[in-house]
């Protein structure tokens, strides 16, 4: 059984979700709930930190697709950061860099959110 965990951090107007383990069809439910909770609280500036993620399946990628329209329509965004090379390849192959902002470093993403806000 693959293990997957999310943990939440806050930095000003931005919420950072650290994900670790394997993100697949089964574990994606947990990430869905984490993101939904943030949206429910009105926190739509979301950064997903991938630094500890081991594997992502297409169902895992679907999670971001299912929320991105709603988040953007509320003036927020979902940005990705700290992707391991292996994970980035999957995103790159499917063309996700065209749809999402992907940063090497989480701070750059936070800065981006702050500059957009001000």
């Amino acid at each position, binding site marked *: 059984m693959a293990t997957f965990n999310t943990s939440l951090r806050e930095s000003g107007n931005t919420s950072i979700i650290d994900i670790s383990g394997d993100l697949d069809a089964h574990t994606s439910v947990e990430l869905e709930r984490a993101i939904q909770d943030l949206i429910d609280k009105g926190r739509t500036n979301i950064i997903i930190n991938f630094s500890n993620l081991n594997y992502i399946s*297409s169902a895992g990628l679907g999670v971001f697709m299912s929320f991105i329209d709603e988040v953007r329509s509320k003036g927020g965004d979902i940005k990705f950061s700290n992707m391991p090379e292996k994970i980035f390849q999957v995103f790159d192959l499917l063309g996700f860099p065209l749809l999402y902002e992907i940063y090497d470093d989480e701070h750059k993403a936070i800065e981006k959110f702050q500059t957009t806000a001000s």
Partner: protein
Amino acid sequence: MQKKVRLTYFLFLALIISEVLHLAVDVGLFYAGEARAYLVSFGILVLKDFLACLSVGAIYLLIRRQIELHALPDAVAWVEPEDAFKRGAILIALIIAFLAVYSTLFNPSDFNPDEEILAAAPQTIYTVFKSHLALLTFGSYLLSLFIVAERLILFRRLKNTKSNFILMAAFLALGSVAMFGAKKGDKLNVLAIAFLSVSGLMMLVNLFRLSWILPIKRDEKIRAIFLVPLIIGGIAIAFNGLHLDEHFTAYSFSVSIFLKGVAVFGLLYLVVTLFSLLFYLPTSEAFERKSIEVKNLYAMSKFITDVFEEEKIYDSLVSYAREACGGSSSVWFDMYHPYAQQTRTAESAIASKLPNLQWRDLNGEYGFFKTVAQQNISLETIQRFSSKADFLWKQVAEKKSIVRIDDIENDVRFGAPSSAVKQFWKRIKSTPASSNGIGSIVSVPLLARNKLIGVLCVAKDVEYGFVKEDLELITTFADQAAVAIDNSRLIRELIDKERLQQELLVAQKIQLRLLPQSQPTLNGFQIDGVSYPAYEVGGDYFDYVQIGDRNTTVGIIIADVSGKGTSAAFYMAELKGIVQSLARIYPNSPKEFLCKANETIARGLEKASFISALYGIIDTERSMLHLSNAGHCPAVVVQGDDAKLVKMKGLALGLDKGALFSRHVSEAHIALNVGDVVVLYTDGVIEAVDKHEEQFGYERLMDIARRSRQKSASEIKNDIFNAVNFFTNDGGAVRDDLTIVVLKRCPV
């Protein structure tokens, strides 16, 4: 059967013959006595005793046979004690009435008191008849009593019970026989005294065998208490009021000893019975309850087998619990429906519209309770009660433990005043209706594998209605039922799973038919492909489309629908339709084809889904492959000794509605020489892992393609597939659907 009937007739005949002879002797003696009574010889008296013994023996056997024949099949005692007492009381009354009527009709005084020296001094011939009638009626009655007593004494016999009784009866009989030939007024001889004393001692032993009393019902005991004194009184009246003692003696001295012994024993036994009945009466209710409990527990253990009808288990549980706690109690069972984690808010909203709902967790943390079976209480009453006592359900859901309220009227949880004086006032003022007729209640959770199934509520109209034993019993019922319900659910789950499995196999068959059934024959090209879903059905797809009329242009697609299983399979089927129709409309540019496909698919796909696809058009006349990639794994091209990945920009289908997609998707044009190999595949190949979690990866794929490049397309395909399998063999896994398509240009 024949033999039994014949035996009965024989006994009857023996009785009649001995009785008639005996009567003849007595009548003869009477008339002789009129003349010279003192001439009665010892021989005649012995004859009389012998005939009397014969009669009594025949009567005894006849009655015993009748009782035995009419016994219920499984009645150890042959008789129901209460029924026997009832018949006994009626019978003795009839006998007394009959003999009394006889006496008043024919002769008020029976025997001549002055002539004690004579064996019999009946005053009239009617007296002689009366003696015989007395024996036939009252004597038979005493014998019946003796038989019934024997059966009751032998009930739940111990090792010596039977021999004790036989000894008593035998010594009594011996004592009687020892007095053969005696006449009225004779003293008992030494032998008879010895025998009778032993018999008397054995009586004391037998008197206290009363194990039949305990199991009979309380009502029956009460009735028996009234009936037994009637019988005792009847026997006493018969002996003293009707002088039957003297008639027995006149009939036969030795038989009279036996019958008197029987009467004494019978009376003593009845008296002991009476006292025992009185003594056991208070405890009989408890005993009865225990036996009902045992019976119910037994029945409960049987309903474990009722696994196919869960509803039946609820009903049984409710009725058993009610039986165990007394008929006046109200019992109902509330099923627990926990909320699923993702949909709890929605479920809570749906739940509020359901009927028979007792409690709903508004925070959406637990679930709701719904009444599914109830007895002796209406749903409205439960509803009214639950609206005041919702903490009860909440507590059961939270703590999964018994909740018990002894005095609802004065329970602080119901908002009752806490001071005793106020409580007292409230009690005086309140009417029973104010608490819906519920005085105390116990709610027991049904737990299976530490999961809450439901709650069994037992309510009584009185306060403090439950004792410790009640709780234990209800808990036992609840536990048993929980196991049964759990089993039932597991079995149903299993059946459902099996059915689902069957349907998935059908779906699998259908999906396999959506993949190419044969390879197209192309001038100068070999082509072969294979697809293995990770589960029964998958989201991988590959296909060939003939473009144009001749076999010169063929479209080839490989695609991977995001996600796995059934939903992916549906999109895969949809994709096939789109591919088959669009490929002919856009015969020249794979990019155009993909742009159009994206537009169509983006409309129908749900947000979280997307499809990666690689589409190529093979032009056999120019030996060209035109490729376009929508977010799919790059094709491997082996040319000469060199293998490389054809990387192209692109975006998976369904991610974007159109503009972004068409801006970024690109095309590649590859000229294929003889011996060149193109491998198309899905990420199942790349992402297959070995036991160290290392991925199969692009390098291994290119390597195997390069090494097998001399072989046919089918063989290359097999080589790749086998390589992936070998790689994952030892503790690794293919995580996704796996598809491989190989194209090779061969010499014409």
